[in-house]
């Protein structure tokens, strides 16, 4: 792997903290603040080193935490939770028939990402999105990658998210995945791996923006001292990108956000983004298609719609083409789309790249389409569809994580080392029955970040979902930050909000010349 983050980090640590090569503190620069009583255990911690001393970019933060009066951190944590609840920043819990709303549990200690680690992530993600976009375009058109034997046709065609209805589509500027949220993890050595790509309707960016705003209010000193890169321009960039997607002859395009409605778990986010961009938030029932053109019903009659940031899944978009029972979509939308009268972000059909089997081929895609070596590694992945892999997986269920190819949200997962023999047996049967639907990966020891547990800090595992906007085949932008999700249960490796995970603000530290967020 290029650019080993941990090495660079420790070099930086030495430079900034005035440590000598052998790790001895030099007397003139004072001690590096440590978190009292905090234990990293055998895990890689993103904020402190193995002695619980602040990593260079976290000095201001750890210093502040140390200086807070006893109980103050907890008090601020509760105040933030209360303000999130009051602001109505909630998601709906599906399993609860009363439609209970919850705030996503928020943790006050931010995750801090060093500039060099971020540079590595940023360039790796851009490369990945360029390749994925080429792949999507290819498999719905020429299918060269299949012809050239890089990825088997059977893998693509058997993917439930591969939509034959989208064959031959050419989205504007040849961009399919305008908005992507890619999940990353770091292992025990601090190496970054791509866990999965989310190209359908990745959610969570609103939490990134809201988490940031509450953190600025609660930790202004540490925030300012930490030279954090701003995230607040995301809605503006999103809006600019959406505008540019409009059909060529439209000078002042009408952009809307399409939501499944208030009962969708991510409704808050849909509303937030529409609000931030100053565009209409529409539901399927607000739209209609006439003569291959999309309109919305307004108090003044019908008004045309040119660009739709849709947060409705592919197969619900148009009951005439996909699921005929869908009431969330708009009959005739696909025909208007094909006619070039409306732009959709993301393009229908992009979900094929979310498939966990297709994921395994992304490094090959990067080599094939771009002629480059992947900057970010995949987690090593066994495809149960391959006989040899399957045999290995079935033999090693107690040490692997098994995932259903088309599932998300932490569903359909077996974490081998934590599972009972019965659960492993159940998964073995599922794998044998439908091998195409399962992959397996070694259990990574995910990195941790200090997290409030009651009145003190304990290490909890985290992942990271940065958000990526793709404006043209070679024009990719990564929001410097992302959603750090944290597994709140001790030892738990599943961080999804639907599985009781929480979130943290993510501070990407600026390098010289980069913009810094102001409080």
């Amino acid at each position, binding site marked *: 792997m290029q650019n080993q983050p941990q090495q660079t980090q420790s070099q930086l640590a030495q430079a900034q903290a005035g440590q000598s090569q052998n790790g001895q503190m030099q007397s003139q620069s004072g001690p590096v603040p440590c978190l009292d009583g905090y234990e990293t255990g055998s895990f890689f911690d993103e904020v402190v080193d193995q002695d619980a001393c602040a990593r260079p970019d976290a000095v201001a933060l750890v210093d502040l935490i140390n200086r807070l009066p006893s109980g103050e951190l907890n008090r601020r944590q509760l105040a933030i939770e209360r303000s999130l609840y009051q602001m*109505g920043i909630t998601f709906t819990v599906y399993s609860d028939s009363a439609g209970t709303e919850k705030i996503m549990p928020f943790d006050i200690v931010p995750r801090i990402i060093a500039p060099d680690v971020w540079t590595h992530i940023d360039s790796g993600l851009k490369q990945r999105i360029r390749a994925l976009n080429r792949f999507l375009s290819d498999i719905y058109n020429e299918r060269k990658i299949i012809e050239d034997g890089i990825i088997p046709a059977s893998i693509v065609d058997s993917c439930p998210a591969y939509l034959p209805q989208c064959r031959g589509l050419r989205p504007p500027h040849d961009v399919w995945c305008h908005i992507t949220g890619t999940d990353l993890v770091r292992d025990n050595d601090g190496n970054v791996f791509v866990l999965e790509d989310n190209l359908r309707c990745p959610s969570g960016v609103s939490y990134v923006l809201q988490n940031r705003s509450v953190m600025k209010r609660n930790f202004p000193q540490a925030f300012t001292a930490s030279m954090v890169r701003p995230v607040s321009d995301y809605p503006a960039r999103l809006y600019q990108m959406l505008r540019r997607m409009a059909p060529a002859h439209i000078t002042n395009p009408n952009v809307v956000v399409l939501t499944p409605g208030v009962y969708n778990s991510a409704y808050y986010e849909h509303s*937030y983004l*529409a609000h931030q961009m100053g565009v209409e938030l529409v539901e399927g029932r*607000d739209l209609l298609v006439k003569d291959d053109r999309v309109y919305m019903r307004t*108090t003044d009659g019908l008004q045309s719609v040119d660009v739709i940031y849709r947060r409705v899944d592919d197969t619900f978009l148009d009951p005439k083409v996909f699921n005929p029972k869908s009431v969330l979509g708009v009959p005739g939308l696909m025909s208007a789309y094909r006619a070039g009268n409306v732009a959709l972000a993301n393009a229908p059909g992009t979900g094929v790249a979310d498939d966990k089997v297709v994921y395994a081929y992304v490094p090959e895609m990067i080599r094939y389409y771009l002629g480059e070596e992947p900057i970010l590694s995949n987690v090593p992945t066994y495809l149960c569809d391959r006989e040899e892999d399957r045999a290995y997986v079935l033999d090693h269920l107690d040490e692997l994580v098994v995932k259903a190819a088309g599932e998300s949200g932490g569903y359909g997962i077996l974490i081998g080392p934590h599972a009972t023999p019965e659960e492993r047996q159940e998964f073995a049967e599922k794998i044998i029955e439908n091998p195409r639907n399962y992959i397996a990966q070694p259990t990574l020891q995910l990195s941790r970040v200090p997290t409030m547990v009651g009145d003190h800090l304990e290490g909890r595992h985290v992942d990271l979902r940065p958000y990526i906007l793709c404006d043209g085949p070679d024009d990719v932008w990564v929001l410097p930050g992302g959603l750090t999700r944290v597994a709140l249960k001790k030892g738990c490796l599943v961080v999804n909000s639907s599985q009781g995970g929480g979130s943290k603000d993510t501070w990407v530290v600026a390098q010289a010349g980069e913009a810094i967020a102001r409080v």
Partner: protein
Amino acid sequence: MLSRVAESVYWMSRQVERAENIARFLEVTLNLILDQPENLVDPWSPLVQVTADEEWFEEKYGKPDSRNVVQFLAFDDEYPNSMVSCLRAARENARGVRETLSSEAFEQLNEFYHFVGDASPAAAMDPTSQFFDAVRKQTLLWSGVFASTMAQDSGWHFANLGRMLERADKTSRILDVKYFNLLPNLADVGTAVDDLQWSALLLAISGIEAYRRDHHQIEIEKVVDFFLFNRSFPRSIHHCIASANWSLGEIEEASSSDMARTAGPILDELQHRLAHTQVEEALAGGMHQFVDSVQTEINRIGEALGQDYFQISVNT
């Protein structure tokens, strides 16, 4: 604006106003029984009558008393027009159009809903009625936030329309029920008790001070006139209807469409009638009949708004 959004904003605003009026009903009644010789007039039955859901009430609660009427009107989750149900509905509507509201407006409503939802009926029964006082303050906050953070565009006018129509309706109901409740005791006319009752009525629409400035003495005709026809007091029916009509006018003026609309003429006519009827006339023809006809017109306006703005058909 989107038809769905216009409709949601309109209802959100009506529902908050409805919740506020329930607090006013209850607060004034709780105050009334403090000052009143025991068992003189049953103040609780009229509050149930005003809902037109008496049967439903009797089945669930039996005979109205302070405890069950407060529970019913303020906190009953199953009763769709209780204060807490109205606020929940208002908040659901607000959630559905959150992107068109100012953050402050949404957050205030959200806080208001939680404030009422988290309250215990026992606290509300406190005879000093601090709870309902707090509810009224919440709605004042809400309307203040709304007035000072929202652009006065069509969305604002739809909200004002909803609020004013609801307020006119509720003012008419307060008058109607109390009038029936109070009038039979003709012997009390002009007595201290009578004064107290009518003052309480004015208090329910926050109008006692404005009334006293104009008239000093409590007189039934003047109280009724104040309720129905006062041109400057923000809760009189005439004022509400005029404000609703102004908003509708602004909405139509901002509209780029020349669709035929029906709500305007009905609202015009009602405003005209309120401006040109004398209180003697209203009383002579039967106050209840007059108030009833106003309520019917308000319902017609609501239906017409639905056709004009909320259910835009494909062919328009």
